[in-house]
């Protein structure tokens, strides 16, 4: 197993997993029990969707609107799964596990290893997927039991560490002007649409940019 792949997988797992503290605390504050909070992390296992659920419920929203918002945010995991399936080639029980850990981080690390070959992509996916799963759930419990001690995640810089972690994952893929143009236009489109569209939609809508960019053979 490539050492760079292992290091990157572990850094991502820990940084992102740590954010589970913020989720655990937010979930309890929104009125969910400890068991419900843990189940959200164990079953849904998708940070953005989970924050959406506790955000909507905490603001007095209905279960239906909580589920809808969370599911819109979850659609991108389906797109990631389509990217990872031909590389992982899994079936049966392994496919269930692979599906559960198909998230931003595991896909991001996997595509970051593309220049090292398909095996490195697989290793990156599994190490990061399982790593985030362990840390995210562990820190969810910690946060639910008493995140007050930690205070605001912003005072630890976690609010910038997470987007920086994603930037670091996409970076190796921005090999040419074509990819850089796609990345820049996707970033701008999502930010511009954020105040207009509901949670989740600005990000998924950039998949259309990827379709437009990929439609014609490049150059």
């Amino acid at each position, binding site marked *: 197993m490539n050492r760079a792949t292992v290091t*990157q997988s572990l850094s991502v797992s820990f940084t992102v997993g740590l954010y589970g503290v913020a989720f655990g605390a937010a979930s309890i504050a929104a009125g969910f029990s400890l068991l419900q909070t843990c189940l959200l992390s164990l079953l849904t296992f998708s940070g953005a969707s989970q924050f959406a659920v506790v955000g909507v419920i905490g603001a007095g929203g209905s279960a239906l609107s909580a589920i809808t918002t969370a599911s819109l945010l979850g659609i991108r*995991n389906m797109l990631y799964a389509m990217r990872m399936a031909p590389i992982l080639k899994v079936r049966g029980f392994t496919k269930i596990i692979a599906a559960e850990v198909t998230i931003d981080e595991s896909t*991001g690390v996997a595509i970051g290893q593309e220049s090292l070959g398909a095996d490195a992509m697989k290793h990156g996916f599994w190490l990061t997927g399982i790593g985030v799963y362990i840390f995210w759930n562990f820190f969810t419990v910690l946060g639910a039991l008493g995140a007050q001690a930690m205070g605001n995640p*912003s005072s*630890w810089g976690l609010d*910038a560490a997470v987007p920086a972690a*994603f930037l670091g994952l996409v970076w190796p893929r921005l090999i040419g002007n074509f990819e850089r143009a796609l990345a820049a236009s*996707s970033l701008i489109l999502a930010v511009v649409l954020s105040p207009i569209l509901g949670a989740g939609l600005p990000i998924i809508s950039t*998949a259309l940019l990827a379709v437009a960019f990929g439609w014609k053979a490049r150059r």
Partner: protein
Amino acid sequence: MNALWISVLGTGAIAFGLKYLGHSIPEKYLTNPRMLRINTLIPIALLSALVGVQTITEKGKWIIDQRLAGVAVALIALSLKAPYFVVVISAAITSAVIYRVR
């Protein structure tokens, strides 16, 4: 069953269902050159979008704060070919310092 339980179990079921569905799309639909190209580009678009949204928006509003400084430092670290954990740590330190000083 109350609203909290419905939202916990409903979200969990749909989240897993979407992931599983993506893994179940027959490979023949994904292997033509055009789909292959698009499929490679989608994570680049979505993750870049995520960086933007997490850096300068909060709850659907544009907000410029310590996060932007942190991510800008990460960008500099990346362009200097810094190792991955240095990129993440430098962003965290920058953001935390600005947050605490403000």
